[in-house]
């Protein structure tokens, strides 16, 4: 029997469709549910009120990351933060959920520890009450962020009620010219289609540039799918994927014969030739320059060689939008981006705090010192990343350069912990959102790659890393 060619997304979706409600809404099975302290307390409370249990404690994994202080992690001084972290511990104990707590060597940002633990595997479905769950799509996984009501739904039923999204193929043709990296590719896409351009779609990234990326680079790309409006972004699994899964100690990944069988299956997952996507777009990766955001959403982005735009010259944004953004950011139209000074550099977050990101930043900072006017936080994404960086001596490079070397957590990405910008401070950040107040009330965020952030730390302002020495 001849079957219709299918996309990667459709193959995984169909394999997880338990059934449907009478109105056609799919009941989608969830293979992994990742839980953190911010979006789960009301969900556990909902279970308690309804007298329900966690249906699959063996598929549910929790950690604490958003509220964690990155200096003295065992001593959370903010009582409200502490209460939220304690609530997760108590809920995990009461409902029998595995927790990687602050004392665990496996603790870290939820989207960094999932792949490290071997929980993130091709062909599976993963959800978490966090929009950056799209990160896990790098493995050829259907992974997306959910709200607290849906967290409760998954805890209770191990399923979600979902309408199937449309499919969107984004092809990055050619190879990016180093030091242009994964972060620049995804920022370029968001700048091209806008922050709502992917709304209603699951994106599949492909093309030579994506095939040439490491798993960590692919995770950076998929991580920011949500900043283009797409709940899910994914990359077809290949040898790079399989090598990552076997490379380190990943306790939950299949081993031996089970692994070989899994690989044989995973090789059937890539989109079939002739599979139809609802939308396609090709971007020439070879032409992408280092990117810097200038405004208050990730779509307000430009080449580092550019100038702050005039309010009436930004496609997709009204004059008022741009004026509001420039006023908040304290930028004047016509200013070259390389003239913009920075006060703080943040190297961290679920977008760019994996070991390769730290190696790249350390490579730029080795034997140099940060500018006297700049403060730099380097925050590893997990305790495993921290340990590995210290084995390699990266922490000594950062410290010798004048950076602060911290413990793992979400840190300054969202300011739910002591790491925050003060009003008016300008930050070169490797994180994912430059919204007003995101990193601290009145703080001004410019999103960049780890290379660009490290170079800005030394120069004291943005530089074009292709020509800067």
């Amino acid at each position: 029997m001849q079957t219709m060619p299918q996309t990667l997304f459709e193959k995984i979706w169909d394999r997880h469709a338990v059934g449907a409600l009478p109105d056609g809404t799919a009941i989608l099975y969830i293979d992994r549910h990742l839980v953190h302290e911010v979006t789960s307390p009301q969900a556990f409370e909902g279970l308690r009120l309804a007298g329900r249990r966690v249906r699959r404690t063996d598929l549910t994994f929790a950690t604490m990351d958003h509220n964690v202080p990155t200096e003295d992690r065992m001593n959370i001084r903010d009582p409200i933060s502490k209460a939220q972290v304690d609530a997760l511990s108590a809920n995990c104990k009461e409902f029998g959920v595995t927790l990687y707590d602050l004392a665990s060597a496996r603790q870290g940002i939820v989207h960094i520890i999932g792949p490290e633990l071997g929980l993130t595997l091709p062909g599976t479905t993963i959800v978490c009450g966090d929009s950056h769950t799209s990160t896990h799509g790098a493995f050829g996984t259907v992974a997306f962020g959910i709200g607290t009501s849906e967290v409760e739904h998954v805890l209770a039923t191990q399923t979600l009620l979902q309408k199937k999204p449309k499919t969107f193929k984004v092809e990055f043709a050619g190879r990016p010219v180093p030091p242009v990296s994964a972060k620049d590719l995804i920022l370029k896409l968001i700048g091209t289609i806008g922050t709502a351009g992917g709304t209603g779609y699951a994106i599949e990234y492909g093309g030579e540039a994506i095939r040439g990326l490491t798993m960590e680079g692919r995770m950076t790309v998929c991580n920011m799918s949500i900043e283009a409006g797409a709940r899910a972004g994914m990359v077809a699994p290949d040898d790079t994927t399989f090598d990552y899964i076997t490379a380190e100690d990943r306790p939950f990944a299949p081993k031996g014969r089970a692994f070989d069988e899994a690989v044989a299956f995973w090789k059937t997952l890539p989109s079939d030739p002739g599979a139809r996507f609802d939308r396609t777009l090709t971007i020439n990766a070879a032409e992408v320059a280092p990117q810097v955001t200038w405004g208050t959403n990730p779509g307000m982005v430009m080449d580092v060689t550019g100038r702050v735009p005039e309010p009436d010259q930004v496609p997709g944004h009204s004059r008022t939008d741009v004026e509001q953004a420039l006023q908040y950011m304290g930028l004047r139209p016509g200013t070259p981006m390389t003239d913009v000074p920075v006060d703080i550099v943040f190297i961290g977050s679920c977008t760019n705090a994996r070991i390769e990101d730290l190696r790249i930043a350390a490579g730029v900072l080795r034997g140099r010192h940060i500018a006297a006017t700049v403060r730099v936080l380097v925050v590893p994404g997990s305790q495993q990343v921290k340990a590995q960086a210290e084995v390699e001596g990266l922490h000594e490079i950062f410290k010798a350069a004048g950076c602060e070397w911290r413990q793992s957590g979400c840190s300054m990405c969202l300011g739910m912990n002591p790491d925050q910008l003060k009003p008016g401070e300008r930050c070169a950040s490797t994180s994912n959102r430059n919204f007003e107040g995101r990193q601290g009330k009145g703080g001004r965020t410019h999103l960049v790659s780890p290379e660009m952030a490290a170079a800005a730390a030394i120069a004291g302002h943005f530089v074009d890393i292709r020509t800067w020495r």
Partner: protein
Amino acid sequence: MALTPFRSHRGTVALLDRANVDTDQIIPKQFLKSIARTGFGPNLFYDWRYLPDGRPNPDFTLNQPRVAGASILVARNNFGCGSSREHAVWAIQQAGFHAVVAPWQECRGTRVPGFADIFRSNAGKNGLLTVELSAPEVEEIFQMVDRFSPLQATVDLDHQRLTLHLPEELAFHFEIDPSVKERLTHGLDDIGLTLKHEAEITAFESRHNPQR
């Protein structure tokens, strides 16, 4: 959790003339530390709504006396983008709103929805109605409300109609996913609906390998 059924709602319209309103603006991070589901209303749009000293910002649109008690919020495109925090929906509801209106847009030949996906989903789960209209229709509402504020409107979910109560009524038809409409209209609980299929879930689990 069963919801209050939504059929029709009449109330005052408030305007928020901003595009890409993200959930960090709707409810800033410091309020996400709560483990309760209530108490978010006073902190809705906190950084816009209050001055640094904590007093209400008189320039912020929702602080103007003529929209006091407003329950229908009209904003620009891509409302609710960013973080998945359901606290954003709770804050909007707890500040007294029953419906949010935002425009879809035509961009490069595709229709871009007015609301971000996760926000729209969260809204539906909590009985907050998201109404999508075309950009010219939303612009017309902005102009009418600007001229005639305080202006009352009725959101009629049964008939999928938003009516501005001007001297001559002005009505807009809106589309909504039939399954979302069904659940809002009857205040249905998703977990309850799904658990009616528990036998299917169990059968699925017996043949499914979650390792791949």
